[in-house]
């Protein structure tokens, strides 16, 4: 910038020397208080350095004399949250499942807890909506392999299915084809028979041929009419619900290989209260049988 400052004749003020189409900018000084605010900000920063975690070091950082820590804050907040919920939580602990479901306040609390637990743990297999997938049961409908009452659901969650828990719900459908228990032709006939059980058009001759095979091999678990048995987790073969698929190929595959899913015993991870809440949540979403 040039040393000699130019003065505007009209206002008597210095100009910045910048010119745009003949218009010059006045060099209006900032008010002094603006400078004070700038100094105050610097002073604030210094105080902040002293009070709060600030300077990084090689292995750590200057903690500041207030020893503020977001991590410690989270622990405190979680403890406070738990304390805040303790009244509801203790009511949940003492009430039985049917009472929880009938008390609107307690039910709302259980549903909220259940939803969050379900999303974090169960949704992986059963889906966020709880509708399951092939091999993973739909928890929203009214079909239950191991029973849909509150107590049944609670037991299934606590001990799991085919899990390591000694009280786990366990059953094993034989792999009729893989283990060569039945001949491939018999399995083809059996497939037609199972299709006919669910009131769908099937090859009557093949189905009729498979009827004695079904009674001999399948009826012990699925029942003579194929209505299933929740004691063994044996599905009802006459309804519209198919865990491993409803088409002929899927049915045949299931008879051949005898798939059986595994569900963890959540009792080892959750406390009793959490399982209660989860039970109420699943029961309510399935329509509350």
């Amino acid at each position, binding site marked *: 910038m040039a040393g000699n400052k130019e003065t505007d004749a009209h206002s008597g*003020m210095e100009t910045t020397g910048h010119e745009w189409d003949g218009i010059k*900018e006045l*060099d209006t000084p900032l008010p002094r208080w603006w400078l004070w605010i700038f100094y105050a900000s610097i002073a604030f920063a210094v105080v902040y350095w002293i009070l709060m975690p600030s300077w990084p070091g090689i292995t750590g950082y200057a903690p500041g004399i207030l020893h503020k820590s977001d991590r410690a804050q989270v622990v405190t907040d979680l403890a406070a949250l738990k304390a805040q919920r303790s009244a509801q939580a203790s009511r949940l602990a003492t009430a039985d499942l049917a009472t929880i*479901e*009938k008390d609107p306040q307690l039910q709302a609390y259980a549903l909220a807890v259940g939803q969050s637990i379900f999303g974090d743990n169960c949704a992986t297999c059963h889906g*966020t909506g709880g509708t399951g997938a092939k091999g993973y049961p739909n928890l929203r*409908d009214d079909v239950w392999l191991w029973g849909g009452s509150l107590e049944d659901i609670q037991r299934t969650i606590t001990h799991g299915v085919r899990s390591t828990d000694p009280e786990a719900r366990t059953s094993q459908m034989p792999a009729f084809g893989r283990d060569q228990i039945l001949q491939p032709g018999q399995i083809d006939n059996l497939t037609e028979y199972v299709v006919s059980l669910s009131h769908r058009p099937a090859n009557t001759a093949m189905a009729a041929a498979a009827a004695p095979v079904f009674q001999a091999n399948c009826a012990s678990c699925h029942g003579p009419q194929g209505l299933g048995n929740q004691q063994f987790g044996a599905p009802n073969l006459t309804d519209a619900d198919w865990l491993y698929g409803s088409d002929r190929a899927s049915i045949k595959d299931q008879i051949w290989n005898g798939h059986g899913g595994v569900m963890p015993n959540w009792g080892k991870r959750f406390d009793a209260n959490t399982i209660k809440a989860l039970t109420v949540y699943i029961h*309510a979403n399935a*329509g509350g049988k």
Partner: protein
Amino acid sequence: MVTVIERREPKPDGSHQGPVSVAKATKAKSQHGGGLYKPRTPIYPKLVHGRWRMIKWALLVVTLGIYYATPWIRWHRPEGLPQQAVLVDFTGRRFYFFFIQLWPQEVYFITGLLVMAALALFLTSALFGRLWCGYACPQTVWTDLFIAVERLWEGDRNARMRLDAAPMSFDKAWRKGGKHLTWLAIGAATGGAWIFYFHDAPTLWKQLWVGQAPLTAYISAAVLTFTTYSLAGGMREQVCTYLCPWPRIQGAMFDEHTLQVMYLHERGEPRGPHKKNESWEGRGDCIDCNQCVIVCPMGIDIRDGAQLECINCGLCVDACDEIMDKIGRPRGLIAYDTDHAVEARACGNKPRYDFIRPRTIYYAGALALVSGLMIWGLVNREPVVFDVLRDRNPTFVRLHDGSIRDGYTLKVANRTFARQTFQVTLEGLPGDVLKTPGMDATKGALTMTVEPDQVGSLRVLVTAQAQALSAPSVPVTFHLRSADIQTEKRSVFLSGAANTP
């Protein structure tokens, strides 16, 4: 940025006659030499008496009275609700204003209120200039109050200037100390009054003194104490000239018919001192007594013409009128007037005051429209708000017999102060079955109870036979009926490819 001001004429150096005010001298000093930062030019406004000063005092009492007293007005509401007339209840998420109660979802009423305030400001600005700045702006009102306090402790203009120039003494110390303590007390009262708008005032008043009030109350009170003290005590006119955007914006609302405080150039010039019994022939009415300058809280000379700094408070009008009375000339050398009237008189025409102009019609029309919408909205406010949230995941569930079940969550906001019991029914789906988890519908209707001033929620499961579903998406309507309220909400029943096996 350059603000070009018409009528500001360069004064010939040295030819200036008469007394030079301290304000003018310090102003000149601060401009000379410049530097990067400009120290504040001290302003010592002299007390003035007159019409506009009286109006300003009255408005000061009224506006501050409203501000300090409002939180203490009680208002009867049903049991369990706040009994305070005006209350912003953050914890309860409600806003109370006498007979009006607003929910957070109705924040558009607040927006409407702000739009109304802006339009009212536009309209008054177009008609009467900076009426808001000069009389009603909190910055002006509190500055006025703080200057009055200053006058009480330190005396009027001349005494204050002497005191500031004098070396430190016991007299100076107690006067200055007393002034600052009173300022801080007013600041604390201001900050203190603010927090009562957010909590039950009598309760908070007791808690405040024993350290049991919420932390936010103490912090808000402290911050507002500080801002009141610093903005009204120290910053004063600098808030208007440096911080406030409104002086820059308001020019857009002004035209030649807008009332502004004006020095009537044609009548006043040429100015100069006047001796008794001297003739008024061939000279202006301005005797250059500088009274208009020394009473100005903004530290400007109105005779330089309309300026950004001028807040149109009219104190110079009072000061000049007083002098005109003394020297026996007609009042109104400085007056509220319009550019148009000044031009007209200069040309020898009769001045015309045009209040109805396209600009004012637009502003008034927009203001009337928004006010009308607000009143319409308040009058037609629904006592019960009913919403139906259809489950999105899963959209539908197929049951063991092939029937389809959809889940809905009904949300009912009961804005009345009475408990409501509703019958929930569904229309549009033949043979539907309604139930909640754990409760079946009786005669096709579910019962739902919503507490007063609460939102109730009901999960409804609707089951339909596959044969009854004519399309993947069937429109349905939920009806909500209580003794005196009926409302409905449309939704759809989704079934995907329900009709295929």
